[in-house]
């Protein structure tokens, strides 16, 4: 299956299908590499899930791809004319803005009423159209955000923890919706998650990252990968603490940051 190809295999021949490629992308904040030398190709129509522990740099990577932060080094190559629909992790809406769901969706370029209706229908949230956006539930808001991303008629949907604030049953449903949208619209999906098992059935490729890419591939394959197990496996609860310790810093008695390690080793 073509979708399962590893990024390194992307040759010049199928470059036309490559929406986006990252070359040795790094983002430094202070002296820390939040993301470190990430290489990644995204093909048209595939669903790629980024997983990793909290603070692994998943959101930073997404924000770099979207152009919200500048990479410190490396390259992001986008296919010319690439349209990205973005669904943020969460939206803080002021109570003081009088805004209906419909008006909120209209803020994406000049979306027509029929576009908005069909986007709402696709995500199953037509009933919210005229409600104040501050008054809808967390699950509904995620669907509205998805609808807003769809209104851009994207080639690539970037979803940062799309199931935030949604109950477990709703989460499974949301992931099913995302994969059916991919089938219907043919767009690629890059999403961030921290639960592999929830996204397993609706993803083609998993990238497991902790600042750098630890392992990647088919979800089944990744779930058995030693690097993945080290980050998420059963026996890792204490190892995880140790691991985080290795990569993080400690504080001395004055509160100054002391870096334990510069590099990363999985030992």
């Amino acid at each position, binding site marked *: 299956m073509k979708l399962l190809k590893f990024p390194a295999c992307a040759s010049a021949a199928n470059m036309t299908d490559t929406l986006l490629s990252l070359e040795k992308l790094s983002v430094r904040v202070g002296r820390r590499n939040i993301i470190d030398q990430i290489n990644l190709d995204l093909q048209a129509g595939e669903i790629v899930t980024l997983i990793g522990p909290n603070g692994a740099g998943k959101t930073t990577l997404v924000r770099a791809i979207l*152009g919200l932060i500048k990479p410190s080094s490396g390259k992001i190559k986008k296919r010319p004319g690439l349209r990205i629909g973005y669904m943020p992790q969460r939206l803080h*809406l002021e109570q003081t803005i*009088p805004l*209906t769901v419909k008006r*909120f969706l209209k803020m*994406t370029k000049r979306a027509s009423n029929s576009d908005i209706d069909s986007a709402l229908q696709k995500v199953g949230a037509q009933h919210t159209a005229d409600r104040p956006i501050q*008054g809808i539930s967390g699950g509904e808001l995620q669907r509205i955000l998805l609808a807003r991303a769809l209104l851009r008629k994207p080639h690539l949907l970037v979803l940062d923890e799309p199931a935030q604030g949604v109950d477990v049953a709703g989460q499974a449903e949301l992931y099913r919706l995302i994969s059916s949208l991919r089938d219907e619209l043919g767009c690629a999906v890059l999403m961030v998650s921290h639960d592999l098992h929830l996204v397993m059935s609706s993803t083609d490729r998993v990238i497991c990252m902790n600042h750098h890419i630890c392992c990647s591939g088919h979800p089944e394959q990744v779930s058995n990968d030693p690097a993945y197990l080290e980050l998420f496996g059963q026996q890792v609860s204490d190892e995880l603490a140790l691991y985080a310790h290795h990569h993080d810093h400690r504080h001395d008695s004055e509160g100054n940051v002391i870096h334990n390690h510069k590099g990363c080793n999985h030992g």
Partner: protein
Amino acid sequence: MADFLWRALLAGLGVALVAGPLGSFVVWRRMSYFGDTLAHSALLGIALGIALDTNLNLAVVGSCVALAFLLVTLQQRKIISTDTLLGILAHSSLSLGLIAISLLEVRVDLFGYLFGDLLTVTGEELLWIYIGVAVILSLLLSFWRPLLAITVDEGLAQAEGYPVLLIRLLLMLLIAIVIAVAMKIVGVLLITALMVIPAATARRLTNSPESMAALSSLLGCIAVMIGLAGSLQWDTPTGPSIVVSATCLFLLIYALPRKDSLSLK
């Protein structure tokens, strides 16, 4: 009606017209203390304007914009919280302004600058106010969509290709201009009230950003008329009278029972 009253009324209405939509942004973005800080620095602008013998309106816009830049720069360094930073800048710039004015050779009507002096608006000042109003209105209309987009969510707006930083600077510039033109009406200490109170009142009655902005303008105009009339009737200071009228409207609207369709909670 005497000429000076017509000028006062026209000046007040012009300012209320633009203070409405800008005040809505101030309310939506929780910038009222920010607006206050910029207004406080206006006095320093006046002092500089007099010392350098330039147009006072432009000097005020200049000093507000300079302070806004300083604020954004310091904010990005993250040395102290924005709230504290605003507290420091607001009061130090006000004090600096007061000292600078006291050092000037010229006698300056300090009370007028602090609390407004609507009844002495001259024809030339009226012209400047309407130039400011025209600039603000045209910029607001042309950039309404991006301004609204960054207000709802900056990250989303940026991802959708809006130049967030530029738009944010534009909003600061607009607020600086409104301060420059409103100073004569309500004075530097009360400008934020003229922006925030009508907008907060309008929030209760509207269900779209546009209607809230428009109604804020209208409520501001009503407050100006009532305040001006009250000030003539009871011989009270005009600027504070306008602000008190706006507050009365606010209290009145919030005391009324609320229609369910507009309720959020």
